[in-house]
């Protein structure tokens, strides 16, 4: 089955060009040009991945992102004209998994989408435990579920991947660059804010007190590591 992509962009020429590129790469794109209709289009087309322009007429890209994230864990890749302003951090905080800065190359875009679509195919029953001994966070890797005290914690696939990456080597300190490579699939140095923002989002969900993390620890000046009992 071909991968369905929802392109939310108001520029018709860019949307059409994206369509050409995506079709040639074997995706099935559908399009919506404004923010108001983005959510209904999303519900209709049930895409596997969303390409979302941040600057949209009607509802802003940030709001669309938040609305989609509220009802789905679908991978969202933002298209943004400005890579260094608060927009990117805003977009990531409102639930986007990754972003590409205009103008991007087709290969770059496709690589970002593929990285988000790539699912781990371990069928081996693997269970990982981390966090404090009295209230551990339990990860069922093949089942894609995370629980604490039996209660499930809803994570997006990206957050899940990030947590599993850290949990599999609990003694290792991961630099942001290594995480970018292994979780996001970047081969060259990329924006480390991706890691920062997603670690914060992850902490907000798995930590008892995000101000004093016990599950995902910061190693100052180096990166992050899993907190183990």
């Amino acid at each position, binding site marked *: 089955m071909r991968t369905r992509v929802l392109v939310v962009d108001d520029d018709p*020429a*860019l949307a059409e060009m994206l369509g050409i590129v995506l079709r040639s790469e074997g995706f099935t794109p559908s399009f919506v040009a404004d923010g108001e209709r983005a959510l209904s289009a999303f519900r209709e087309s049930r895409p596997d991945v969303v390409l979302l322009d941040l600057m949209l007429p009607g509802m802003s890209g940030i709001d669309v992102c938040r609305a989609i994230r509220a009802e789905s864990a679908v991978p969202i890749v933002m298209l943004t004209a*400005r890579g260094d302003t608060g927009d990117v951090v805003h977009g990531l905080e409102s639930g986007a998994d990754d972003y590409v800065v205009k*103008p*991007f190359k*087709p290969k770059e875009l496709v690589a970002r989408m593929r990285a988000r679509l790539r699912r781990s195919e371990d069928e081996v029953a693997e269970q990982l435990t981390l966090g404090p001994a009295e209230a551990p966070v339990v990860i069922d890797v093949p089942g894609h579920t995370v629980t604490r005290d039996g209660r499930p914690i809803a994570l997006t696939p990206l957050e899940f991947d990030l947590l599993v990456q850290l949990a599999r080597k609990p003694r290792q300190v991961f630099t942001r660059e290594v995480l970018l490579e292994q979780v996001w699939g970047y081969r060259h140095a990329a924006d*480390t804010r991706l890691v920062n923002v997603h670690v914060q989002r992850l902490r907000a969900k798995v930590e008892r007190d995000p101000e004093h993390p016990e599950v995902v620890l910061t190693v*100052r000046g*180096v990166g992050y590591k899993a907190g183990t009992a």
Partner: protein
Amino acid sequence: MRTRLLAPVRGARRAWRRSLQLRVVATTLAASGVVVLCLGVVLVHRITDGLVDAKRVSAVYEAETGQTYARQQLQALRGPQDAELQRTLYSVGGNLSDRAGRAAQFGVVLVPADRALPPVYSGHLVRSDVDIPADLTRRVADDNVFAYQYTQMAPDGGRTRATLVIGAPVVTTAGSFALYYLFPLDAEASTARLVQNTLLATGIVLVLLVAAVAALVTRQVVTPVRAAARTAERLSAGLLQERMRVVGEDDLARLATSFNQMAANLQRQIVQLEDLSRLQRRFTSDVSHELRTPLTTVRLAADVLYSARDEFDPHLRRAAELLQTEVDRFESLLTDLLEISRYDAGFAVLEAEAADLGELVRQSVDFIRPLAERAGSDLRVTLPDEAVVAEVDRRRVGRVLRNLLGNAVEHGEGRPIDVVLARDAHAVAITVRDRGVGFRAGESQIVFNRFWRADPSRARQTGGTGLGLSISLEDARLHGGWLQAWGEPGLGAQFRLTLPIDPTKRLTASPLPLVPADAGPPALAGVTGA
């Protein structure tokens, strides 16, 4: 000990320098003090002189009367051998003394020139204490002159006090005598003292009063001035709404009005500038978005054409290739222009976090290595053993490093390139050294100029935009750091990036020298600061 003693002195000096009111009050106090003192001294002198003069006039009259009486009494005798002489002397002395009354306002001494006869003293005088000044004795007894003199004496055995001594010669057929009147100036002295004390007290009160008035008056002036100073401080702290209260129509009200006008003008101009800056920001952001969206479409289209170029005939293929490379160049130029305009508009934001600079250097070197290999330059990296962690904006520092390394490769003539990272307690430094053509001493400033090219005639190898070093310089400044260049024709160039470990601290020195050790006397070096 010394400093502890000096501390209050220093405090007083600071208060003196800082308070106009204190200075005015102190000056008034000093000036009015001097004036009142002078006036007081003159006044006391005049009053005392007046008192003493009045006393002398009456005393002289008394003495002349006594002199006449004594002369009459003694003239009546029959020469110096008169048996009555001794008795007459006593009766004259006694009678003259009696005139002084019970209050003993004066004492009388009658001294015969004939030393065989004893002097006659008023009853209340103590003989041994009566000490007629020798000067007066000589003039009265020897020269037969009526004379007086002021002296200090205690003729009645009491305390020593000012005394007017009047001497009158009494020359008769019965012989020569000297009649002395001793007038104690008790009443005059106490009156003078009273006047003195009254004047002193009045003077002090007057001076204090004047000082208080001065304080009050200066306060009236200083208070609005202080209010103006406070308002100015608040204005400069950014509270542009701050104004002074205008009361009445006097000069101070005019000061307040002018001040408020100035504040209003300033506020208007600042708001205008802020609007301009906001407009510029909006414009940059809009241009960015508006240009980037079509550029993305062009970029995607160019890529589609480029990947299909093998199916085209040679002309079209070449066109597709050119389109591809020029879109690349256009893109990096646009990126750099937008970055520069972001700095010009003043809204570049530092996103500092703790980062391992060694790792950043490694990444940048890895990034540039393919280019260096193509150019034939060996990249030699010297890093400290331990991690060098500083609060920096990774994206910006990475960009600076890639820029410096790119330049070194482009201008390095295929010779080795050295990259050194070092740190001290306050700063980290990274130097990038090439051994290419270098540049002249005067050019170390202008290498940072926008669109400056080392040698315009040289063919460009890498697609630099000419803005890289300008942006890098701004990146360094945003960190509170330095980006400096050294160069010498034939020896190559070295760029040094120095960043404070804590971006809120000021840099004072760099852990690495700007001029490389193999580069001769540093005086020749062209050095520029950022």
